[in-house]
């Protein structure tokens, strides 16, 4: 599994969110899913990407706690290190 720093993870997540239809200029650390029009299916796909590329599992209960892009980036970055 490739190692990645927080910036790389944020860039990958931004690309994923953009592919779901979110506007790139609105994808910021403090942006929440609702504002980005990211729905539950998008989050499932985001979790798959994160698991495949960083080996980090984002379970359903984890996802409920992650309200913003920054929350998700920090969650993945923290666990990708360990």
């Amino acid at each position: 599994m490739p190692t990645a720093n927080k910036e790389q993870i944020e860039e990958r997540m931004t690309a994923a969110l953009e592919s779901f239809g979110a506007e790139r200029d609105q994808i910021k650390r403090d942006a929440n899913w609702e504002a980005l029009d990211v729905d539950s299916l998008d989050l499932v796909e985001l979790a798959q990407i994160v698991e495949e590329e960083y080996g980090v599992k984002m379970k359903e209960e984890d996802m409920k706690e992650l309200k913003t892009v920054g929350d998700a980036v920090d969650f993945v970055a923290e666990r990708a290190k360990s």
Partner: protein
Amino acid sequence: MDSAVGRPEGCALVTGASRGIGAAIARGLAEDGWAVGVNYRSDSDGAEEVVSQLEAAGGQALAIQADVSDRDAADALFPPLEERFGPVLVLVNNAGVRVDGLAPQMEDEAWDKVLATNLSGAFRLTRRALRGMMRARFGRIVNISSIVGQRANPGQANYAASKAGLIAFTSTVAAEVARRSVTVNAVAPGLVETELTKDIGDEMLQAIPARRAGTPEEVAACVRFLVSQEASYVNGTTLTVDGGMTA
């Protein structure tokens, strides 16, 4: 028309494809240009024969053993196909078993075995297949149900429950993933000439307006349509193919 034009690269997986309806579906999808994973549980000779037929006709195919009632079946089925042919973009959940008996006497094992294969197996393979399909923004899942899932057939409470469950599962998952251009549909055959139905009496034919059993190829034709590009807006439905039996 070349049916492979305009669709992503990938392959099809047909469970229970060593004979009967599954083998006919595998042949049909290969004719439509799909590389096909031919799953079997115990009939390796049958599966290899299907693969040989497909390859002789110019297609690509791979026989893969797995009991779909096993929780780990997806791990046995998907990696070899993905490695050789690319993502599984077509999944046909066809594998099915019958253990008939009246409900008052039905053993737990008979209930569990039928539900584990016919319904839980389809769920786990669908869950795994959706990963690649969602990423590809293309996918076709066809669950082989039965008219028994829609109307009573004494002696098959377990089979009927599994097939009715497949119909509800189909429509629900379709609604969940439709916006990723993934379709999930079911086909509900009536009486079809296969090993699974050989012990059903001729008197049943009298209840069929067509006065005959269907063929595996007639069921396969419905699956081929649902998998085709032309069926891209058909989602969450159940296509009955029963010679008018439930009309």
